[in-house]
């Protein structure tokens, strides 16, 4: 399965947006901490990995990975 750089970028921005919005809603008192926490538990890991994939992925084809001995 190959994911394009633009795709992981979208996942990252969506995840970061959800995290920020839920934090904002918690600070304004619209949602309780438990809901905010549940959202972060689900979204934060995906966002972190998407961020890493985003800045790791090259625009071009990339080199051939070393397969092993």
């Amino acid at each position, binding site marked *: 399965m190959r994911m394009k750089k633009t795709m992981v970028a979208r996942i990252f921005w969506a995840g970061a947006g959800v995290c*920020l919005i839920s934090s904002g809603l918690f600070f304004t008192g619209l949602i309780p*901490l*438990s809901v905010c926490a549940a959202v972060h*538990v*689900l979204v934060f*890991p995906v966002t*972190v*990995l998407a961020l*890493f994939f985003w800045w790791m992925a090259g625009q071009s084809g990339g080199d051939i*990975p070393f397969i092993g001995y």
Partner: protein
Amino acid sequence: MIAELVLATLFGLLLLGIHRKLIARIQRRPGPPVWQEILHMLKFSFKTTWVPVTASSTLFVAVVLIAIGIWTAAFYVLVSGGSLLVILGIYMLHKIVEHGFGLSSGSPYGKYGGVRSVISAASEIPLFVSVAVIAIYTHSLDLYAIIEYQQVSGPLIVAAFPAACAMFLVILSKMPFGPFSIVEAKELVSGYKTEHFGIWRAGLEVSNGLKTYVLLAVFLTVFFGPLTLPWLLTGMILLIVLLAFSCAITPMMSPFDSVTIQTMVTGLMLIYAAIVLLVVRP
């Protein structure tokens, strides 16, 4: 809240870096800079990444997400003053994450790391006993109730010093380069994390940072009571100094010795809990 989460992760990684630097200085080596673990995380995140051909790909990837997810949950339980039992449960489930890391790759090194993680299950029992002792004193396991108890009756580290020692030992068994860290011993290359490279390893580093922060903060909250943020951070640094000394001056034990010592500590803690139950409870 997301800012706190990210800062906690980075501070946890910084603590691991301090830990590593101190061990090096105690052993008269120059050692890496204190922010090395943060750099490590960034370095791994830029590496080319794929899934090994022998791996169970879904589990291989999912376990990284679960590792970050469970410690995010633990962080929020800590922040909201929730039940100590939930944090304890998450700590135990970290073991399953270790199994998942080790077993999903198909590599024998990871596999043996996972198997060692199973046989060192004895290290968690002292944690249960110290939690039981705390429950005997405070009559509740909610962190805010434990804090309230300490505001009235003074820090628990005075009243339940052996329980604090047992919990310290439990944290020590999860620290890198410690006497009990047989799951990532060098004879197994890197133990359970051998095959998780590149971004998967960077994700593991994130979870390690968060784990270190949460475990140290829980220790300070449970045994020293309410601390303001500067004191909490100072306390964590002091605790990591103590852990670094313990790790630096002890060799890594063989799996058999490690399990034997942990089982002996469990036995001692059970006797201590029985004494507390008979003396304090009535």
